[in-house]
């Protein structure tokens, strides 16, 4: 954190947390925090004629950990195309070398997020056994603050407790695992389905029993909501639903969302949702197969709009060659069967699995074009932008570096039409989607809700991230867009958001004129739950090691302190 004073002067401020929409004003910074005012000796940063927003928060991105790295490792061609470096030039000023396009190196990840004015990124899936790996990568990623969500929904302990209806034991186990892995919250990936994949099977519907464990995905989801609210964690459960990516999956999607009905968020962090349903685009499909594949974004969003205790993120397809990776092991195997490209799989004992397959989203391939439209439609049908977040499920639907392009499409009907017009079968795309009938163009205020205030609140981090109110972290992005005279050419919006004119993090200037000028002070954020010792859980966990279902020693399981430097620990206290 930098000491000293700074003032960002004269920009158009967009801050949904204070309902400020483009008013000209100043942002005062002192000792890394936003303050009401500073002395006249403060360093002045001129933001005149530019927009000023809080540092952005990414609620769901695969940026660090074993499967991300499996993707990097298996795809040398992601670094080169036709013998040319595909990732752009490295920093000129002697900073660390950058490489990769769809799965960038840690250095490029940190630098590119900073260039877009992002301050916090949530690594969306951490296998607990491999948590030290995730933290090693986070450690080597410059600038951005990061946290990681351990996966729980296929964990043997969780399934075993929930089968017996033991929510308290589940909660104690969650508390133990968050501490052992320095994790942030409760991630669910294809509940039960990934566990089934260990035998080469899957759970496509919410009521498919998980082999051996005699529990259903619906029971796992419900049980983990209960345990999450029992603990009062800052974030809700974070759900990657069953039956991802398949035509006709939207009824399953809505059925899973309905599990949240009747639950109320219980926490001290200002969070109102009890379920975050991630990359909803992959779950909003109609049709019986790929021939009549179509968007059901409207049907899904009609439900989301009226159900106030759920949040979603988009998972927008950006029409790039990318690398899919998910703890949804069976899905990746299925995808590999469709495109026949190389397939990596990692089953993790007792806990989870993961798969990685390269994928080319081709705008001339009808299902891909429909996926592109579906992602955008979700946002355009959304009524509450503070519950709807922009993601590409990086790198699954596209690399995170395409966020500005997604924003361009959301803010400009013309830009959407222009992309549609370049497709091979625009008429077929229009017939299978809603996109052509939507005039809505999102405003910068709404974009700020979707990328700043909304995700920060959903993660229980709204006291420090996502706004420019006094007392919050001094994370400020300045972009070369004139609020009073927005460019008619939407491409310019994309360009301006791709590379911030200036990005300040923790009161330090990190990016100037689109280039990184400092590595700042990154933080690893995790949640530490204080909860009375649960002898049952303690015994169960230690037996899994001593009786050898795990293959490592329990002493070497918890992530050691030095792997997560600059920790920012969020304390949660559960009364006895």
């Amino acid at each position, binding site marked *: 954190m930098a000491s000293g004073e700074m003032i960002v002067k004269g920009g158009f401020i967009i801050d949904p947390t204070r309902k400020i929409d483009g008013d000209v004003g100043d942002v005062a910074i002192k000792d890394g925090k936003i303050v009401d005012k500073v002395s006249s000796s403060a360093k002045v940063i001129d933001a005149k004629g530019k927009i000023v927003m809080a540092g952005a928060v990414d609620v769901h991105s695969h940026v660090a950990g074993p499967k991300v790295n499996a993707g990097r490792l*298996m795809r*040398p*061609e992601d670094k*080169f195309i*036709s*013998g040319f470096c595909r990732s752009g030039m490295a920093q000129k000023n002697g900073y660390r070398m950058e490489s990769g396009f769809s799965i960038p190196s840690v250095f490029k990840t940190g630098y590119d997020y900073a260039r877009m004015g992002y301050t916090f990124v949530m690594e969306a899936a951490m296998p607990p056994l491999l948590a030290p790996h995730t933290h090693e990568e986070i450690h080597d990623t410059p600038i951005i603050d990061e946290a990681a969500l351990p996966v729980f929904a296929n964990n043997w302990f969780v399934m075993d407790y929930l089968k017996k209806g033991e929510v308290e034991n589940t909660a104690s186990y969650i508390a133990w695992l968050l501490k052992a892995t320095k994790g942030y919250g409760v991630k669910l990936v294809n509940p039960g389905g990934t566990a089934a994949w260990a035998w080469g099977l899957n759970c496509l519907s919410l009521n498919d029993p998980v082999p051996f464990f005699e529990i259903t995905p619906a029971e796992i989801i419900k049980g983990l909501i209960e345990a999450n609210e029992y603990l009062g964690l800052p974030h809700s459960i974070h759900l990657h639903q069953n039956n991802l990516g398949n035509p006709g999956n939207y009824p399953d999607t809505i059925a899973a969302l309905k599990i949240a009905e009747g639950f109320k968020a219980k926490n001290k962090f200002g969070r109102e949702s009890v379920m975050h349903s991630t990359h909803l685009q992959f779950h909003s499909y109609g049709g019986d197969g790929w021939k009549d594949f179509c968007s059901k974004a409207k049907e899904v969003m009609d439900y989301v709009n009226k159900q106030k205790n759920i949040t979603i993120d988009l998972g927008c397809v950006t029409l790039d060659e990318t690398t899919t990776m998910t703890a949804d092991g069976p899905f990746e195997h299925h995808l590999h069967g469709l495109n026949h490209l*190389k397939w990596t799989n990692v089953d993790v004992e007792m806990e989870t699995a993961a798969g990685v397959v390269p994928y080319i989203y081709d705008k001339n391939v009808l299902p891909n074009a429909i996926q592109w439209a579906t992602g955008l439609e979700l946002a355009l049908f959304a009524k509450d932008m503070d519950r709807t977040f922009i993601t590409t499920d990086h790198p699954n639907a596209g690399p995170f570096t395409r966020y500005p392009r997604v924003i361009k499409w959301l803010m400009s009907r013309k830009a959407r039409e222009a992309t549609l017009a370049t497709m091979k079968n625009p008429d077929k795309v229009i017939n299978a989607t809603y996109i052509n009938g939507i005039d809505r163009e999102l405003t910068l205020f709404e974009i700020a809700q979707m990328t700043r205030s909304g995700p920060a609140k959903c993660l229980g981090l709204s006291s420090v991230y996502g706004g420019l109110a006094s007392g919050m972290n001094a994370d400020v992005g300045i972009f070369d867009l004139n609020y009073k005279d927005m460019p008619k050419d939407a491409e310019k919006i994309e360009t301006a958001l791709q590379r911030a004119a200036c990005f300040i993090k923790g009161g330090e200037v990190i990016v100037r004129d689109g280039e990184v000028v400092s590595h700042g002070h990154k933080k690893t954020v995790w949640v530490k739950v204080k909860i009375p010792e649960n002898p049952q859980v303690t015994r169960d966990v230690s037996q899994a090691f001593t009786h050898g279902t795990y293959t490592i020693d329990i002493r070497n399981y918890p992530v050691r302190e030095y792997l997560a430097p600059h920790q920012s620990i969020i304390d949660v206290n559960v009364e006895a």
Partner: protein
Amino acid sequence: MFEGYSITPDAFAGKNAAQIAALPGHEGKIHVTIGDFFEVSGNGGETAADTDIVITGDCTRVKYIGARMTAGTVTVNGNADMYVGGWMKGGKIHIKGNMDSFCGIQMEGGELLCDGDAKNHVGCAYRGDWRGMKGGTIRVKGSAGNDIGTFMLGGTIIIEKDAFIHVSTHAEGGTVVIKGDVEGRVGGQMVKGDMYVLGKIKFMMPGYKKVDTVEKEIDGVKATFDHYIGDLGERHPKSKGQVVYANLYLKAVA
């Protein structure tokens, strides 16, 4: 060791000798120029298509000659190092000596002719890429090593003498002609495409099955070939209801 990635008609076009001599290259981490290694005379043509480059002398340690070129010609009166004609799209390269490995890697068009031998990975794909050679012709008048046409999608590779192992591995198109003998591993994991072997194959792949005997003419040679299909262990696409296999035409023993 000179990385001569600027030695292409595209880079030379529109430049005079001095400008060409100033074109960049690398020797390890040192930035060097073409002029540091070559005496340059003559000027580039107006476009790549009317630029002809002739290199006299030994280029055994000059990489990337003609890489990514789109038109024009490059002639080397001697040997050439790795990546000759890599990723090239058009034009013609003539190497009068031998070539090292990775020549014609991921080539898309044009012509690469070598009077001598080639080492390994002729017309292969870059590591990890499933999009190998797409078009153009590579002709090696001598022999070649392992990995010929790996992940090939199109174009033609002709080896006039012998080849070692791995011909058209993982290929999904294109034609490879070996006029001499091959040690083995011809067409392993191959999805589709054609191979002709005019000599002998010492070790056949078990996934190939003889289906008939055909008369064919290939590269000026008319002969009777045993026609094999395969690799039966690999996946194969369907076209009009018919499974498409890779074809191996092995010259029948008289």
